[in-house]
């Protein structure tokens, strides 16, 4: 004898879950739209000399703050549910946002969120202070995971490698050296990790190509004595 309530209950649960997914999906869509506009603004850095970057960074910061509002809206809804049940829905957009934040910070923006104003990037704790809690292990609530933070750093590295090339075109021969030093430090960091065969492994394997790309630029510059004297670790 088959009790049909079993199937009715299941259908009710499926419908509930679909409703939650739809609600979250809508917010994530908005976040994604704003994310694209942040990235569009930040990409202007590739064609803007360093001394004229300020307005670009201000615009980018404005968009990033708007995205942060969206994230807190997302957090309010997501916190009603188990974190890891739905986090796949927004992880991509959250990574993109953190990557934008990091790039903006590296270029000199978001100064007030850096503990050390000379720092070139935001540590996971600093991102946590700015955006959402990070790496919550004992509490089932919305947060940025370590993996997401690391993936965001990798995207930033790729963007910086591109920036190294474009800086030279803009006549800035110092920045490639700074970029080279920074991503080599990050590369050394990534090499400390024992990665499994997952997305993090796949993406972090790409860092060495970014490092090489920048090294080639620095090599070309130093060969021709184009690196200004006294600049960073030339």
């Amino acid at each position, binding site marked *: 004898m*088959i009790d*049909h309530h079993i199937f009715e209950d299941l259908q009710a649960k499926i419908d509930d879950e679909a409703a939650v997914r739809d609600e979250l999906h809508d917010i994530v869509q908005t976040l994604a739209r704003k994310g694209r506009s942040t990235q569009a603004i930040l990409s202007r850095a590739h064609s803007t000399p360093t001394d004229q970057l300020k307005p670009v960074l201000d615009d980018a910061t404005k968009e990033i703050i708007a995205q942060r509002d969206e994230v807190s809206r997302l957090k309010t809804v997501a916190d009603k549910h188990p974190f890891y049940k739905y986090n796949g829905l927004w992880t991509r957009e959250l990574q993109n946002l953190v990557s934008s934040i990091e790039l903006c910070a590296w270029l000199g923006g978001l100064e007030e969120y850096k503990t050390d104003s000379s720092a070139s990037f935001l540590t996971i704790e600093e991102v946590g202070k700015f955006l959402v809690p990070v790496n919550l292990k004992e509490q*089932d609530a919305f947060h940025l995971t370590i993996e997401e933070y*690391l993936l965001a750093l990798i995207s930033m590295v790729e963007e910086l490698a591109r920036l190294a090339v474009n800086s030279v075109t803009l006549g800035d021969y110092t920045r490639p050296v700074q970029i080279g030093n920074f991503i080599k430090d990050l590369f050394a960091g990534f090499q400390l990790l024992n*990665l499994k065969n997952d997305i993090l492994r796949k993406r972090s394997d790409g860092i060495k190509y970014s490092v090489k790309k920048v090294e080639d630029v620095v090599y070309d510059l130093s060969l021709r004595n184009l690196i200004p004297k006294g600049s960073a*670790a030339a």
Partner: protein
Amino acid sequence: MATPTTEDQPQPTNPIISMFETFRDELDEHHDRRERLIKTSRDITALSKKIIFSLQRYPSQSPNPPPTHKLTLKTALPANITKETTTRFTQIHTLFTSILPDLAAPPNTWRYQRQLSSGIQEFIEALSFHHYLTTQTLITLPEVQAHLPPQILVTEEDYLLGLFDLTGEMMRFAVTALSAGNADTSTGGEEGGEGAVGLGEEHRGIVVDLRDMRSGFEGLSVPRRHVMFKDMGKKVDVMQGSVEKVERAAYGILVRGRERPKGWRPDLVVAGGGGGEEGY
């Protein structure tokens, strides 16, 4: 603007390095836990399969079962089978209990849900099959949960996918039962006349139940964005195949049952149609 770091200090004091060292420890902990859970899930799957096998042996292999015991649902299983399944269920319970420390932190039940899911589904298949044979009803989700430590998460998806697999087990059971049951009918027929030829009460029951389950499954609508969406299609196909096999088998028994030689079984390879790899 980024300030270049030109430290010549020893590695550990580099802030990037020390940050990554923390990450390494955290990720190692996560990967270790993940692997432990995957291994346990596999062990649970293996034990569940053994339970299913011994339940399937019930119609064909119980040595000289008393007539009342022969293939009847809703009664206690023979002692030798009960003994085996009880041991296995206890072992599974021990395995579930052993992973509780890894799931103690609140986010972890969902964080590692995917690692445990296949073991839980197989367990549900075994448990629901056992439940069906002894009660002729479908086990409910709360009843499944009652068999597990409360910290173990049983999702609706796992439950539903476990029930899909149950139809396959019911099919196998029904086919064996129909052929064995038919032997009774024909010996009964010799004694009691022609009217006795037909499906026994239980056999008709299992066919009707499978048909009901099929209509229940087919009535579910799963939206495209739902996690279950991609698993459903294939499961539905296999389930439909199983139901049809049993329907054909029942038909074969009714139509040709009287003429069939001893030991004859419904020809499923021909009659079964779709879902061939599930053939018995």
